């Protein structure tokens, strides 16, 4: 899960990394008030959990409270790469000398954490790596021994920091490492890590992706973070929120009119490809993973159908761990409870398929053994025939 910037910054502050002064605003009025309290130019930053926010025009500067109000009213409610921010972070605008980068993530090939340091922060770190390879330094860390301050000093020296900067930079890395290892981060970044006129370091932006599979052991930590206001009961943010609340691991929307439910990531992606090949367009996609229950598939069908554009639901099940009788029960429960008017096309194969198919037949739910027949049928329904 990607934490919101304000949540990540709260963690940074707790671990001793300086961040700009500021607060969250849920309205334009509130943004103006915070700007007037800060008494200087401010940055107004949409709180969304997607990348490319700045390029989408959702991070802006305001010279005074009036301008802050105007900008906040535009940013609140704008579409930021498919998300609508319910609040903005209003922060003092910092006068900076230069921008650095500090981040930690996993090196999957070498099976260890890797620290990435750069003297060119603020821009896409991938393009720095491509165009200015000398300005970026990497250091892999032994997963059993962990990080030590000398690693930080080595990296700071390699990216050409001055003697006085080396200590500050390596202390930021020590803090980032503490967050990374104590809170199961998948990626943590201070970028840009700004150098001010007085030489101090301030993290202007922060990124913190928590490993989804570690959430169970970070629940106290997550509860402690400030909460995002619940999205209004319509739109993508709300449907995502609902899917998550019901324990659906993957929920994705595209532009189309077919709802797809699958019980495996690989077969789910195959289903999407085959739908596209057959001339259909997927609107909503739920993937349930290999530990699905009757309840979960019932929720998945329900979440997919909250999209008004969906005209047909295609369910592709080919389970090893997932039991087809459980899946059939979930689909039958949905049909009994909601008597849907839209067609539901089921493809079912795998462990306990005979039992599953019997349940579907008892409820007069049509099913296919062949995936392509199911896909073609769903695409036909989506075109209104």
């Amino acid at each position: 899960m990607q934490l919101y910037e304000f949540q990540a910054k709260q963690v940074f502050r707790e671990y001793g990394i300086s961040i700009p002064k500021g607060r969250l605003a849920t309205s334009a009025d509130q943004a103006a008030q915070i700007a007037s309290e800060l008494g200087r130019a401010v940055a107004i930053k949409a709180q969304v959990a997607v990348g490319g926010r700045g390029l989408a025009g959702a991070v802006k500067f305001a010279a005074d409270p009036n301008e802050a109000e105007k900008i906040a009213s535009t940013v609140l409610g704008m579409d930021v790469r498919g998300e609508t921010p319910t609040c903005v972070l209003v922060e003092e605008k910092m006068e900076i000398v230069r921008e650095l980068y500090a981040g930690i993530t996993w090196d999957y090939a070498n099976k260890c954490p890797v620290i990435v340091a750069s003297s060119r922060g603020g821009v896409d770190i991938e393009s720095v790596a491509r165009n200015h390879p000398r300005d970026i330094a990497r250091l892999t860390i032994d997963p059993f021994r962990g990080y030590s301050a000398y690693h930080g000093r080595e990296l700071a020296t390699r990216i050409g920091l001055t003697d006085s900067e080396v200590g500050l930079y390596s202390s930021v890395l020590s803090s980032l490492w503490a967050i990374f290892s104590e809170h199961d981060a998948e990626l943590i970044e201070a970028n840009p890590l700004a150098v001010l006129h007085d030489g101090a370091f301030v993290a202007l932006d922060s990124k913190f992706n928590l490993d989804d599979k570690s959430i169970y052991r970070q629940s106290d930590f997550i509860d402690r973070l400030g909460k995002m206001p619940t999205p209004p009961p319509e739109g993508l943010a709300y449907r995502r929120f609902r899917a998550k609340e019901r324990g659906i691991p993957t929920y994705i929307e595209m532009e189309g009119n077919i709802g797809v439910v699958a019980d495996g990531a690989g077969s789910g992606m195959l289903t999407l490809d085959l739908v596209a090949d057959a001339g259909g367009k997927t609107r909503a996609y739920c993937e349930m993973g290999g530990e699905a229950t009757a309840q979960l598939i019932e929720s998945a069908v329900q979440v997919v159908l909250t999209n008004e554009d969906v005209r047909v639901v295609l369910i592709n099940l080919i389970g090893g761990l997932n039991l087809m009788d459980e899946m059939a029960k979930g689909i039958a429960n949905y049909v009994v409870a909601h008597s849907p008017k839209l067609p539901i096309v089921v493809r079912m194969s795998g462990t306990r398929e005979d039992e599953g198919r019997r349940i579907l037949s008892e409820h007069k739910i049509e099913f296919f053994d062949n995936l392509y027949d199911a896909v073609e049928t769903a695409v036909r329904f989506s075109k209104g025939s």
Partner: protein
Amino acid sequence: MAILVDRGTRVLVQGITGKIGSFQTQLMVEYGTSVVAGVTPGKGGQVVHGVPVFDSVQQAVHQTEAEVAISFVPGPYACDAAMEAIDAGLRLVVVVAEAVPLRDAVRMLAFATGRGTFVLGPDTSGLISPGRSKVGVQPHRLFTEGRVGIISRSGALSYETAKTLTQNRIGQSTVIGLGGGPVWGFTYRQALEMFRDDGDTDAVILLGEIGGHIEEDAADYLRNGYPKPIIALIVGRTAPPGQKMGHAGAIIQQGKGSAQSKISALKRSGALIASAPREIPEILRKELRL
């Protein structure tokens, strides 16, 4: 002789007394896998589907000479269980748990490195050599004995492909699930090396997906030539970028790991590209003159 496991390979099941572990053990025993021991700490002395249960892997190995482990231990405890099996010297450990924390997955895999144990997974469907042994969770009715090897990240995609082959009367030698990623013990490269030397395998199907770069790594390996036909299928061609498609590894970021880059790399290395499982039987018939 199939790769990795064969008729009579002595298999140990970790987490055998749990609901999933016990049910899947029953299926493996029915299939003919020689499951010789189970392990659940504190449940030693019990018997599950005719299999004796021990308190530790060490004890189980000592008593039964188990060679290979499959673990149904849930995510939070999976790392400890895998390290116990690696420490006991098993040559292959199959980690089924889907929700293994990333930090734990990295630790278990780093621990296995240099200790001579292959780790399959985590989040894997395991492996099956149809008609000989199944150390996994595959719906085995969809599989049939034969001479085509399959390597897949996704379990379900390997079932789909095996089902298509079986319906077309093309059997499989060994079918391997690598796991959902983003970090893997066993990868395509090692599986390709084993299939190359396997006298029972005539062709290999490589089932990949978007994200990460283990398919590109496989393409690098294949570039120097491979003595058997390779058929590759990459799914996620139409997935939107920047989204996790269910598997932790399946995400296109900043143009990296796209289906197109994988397909081009594999094609350049001589693999034949299929865009759906149903195209594979015909390619195989042509290549193998079936």
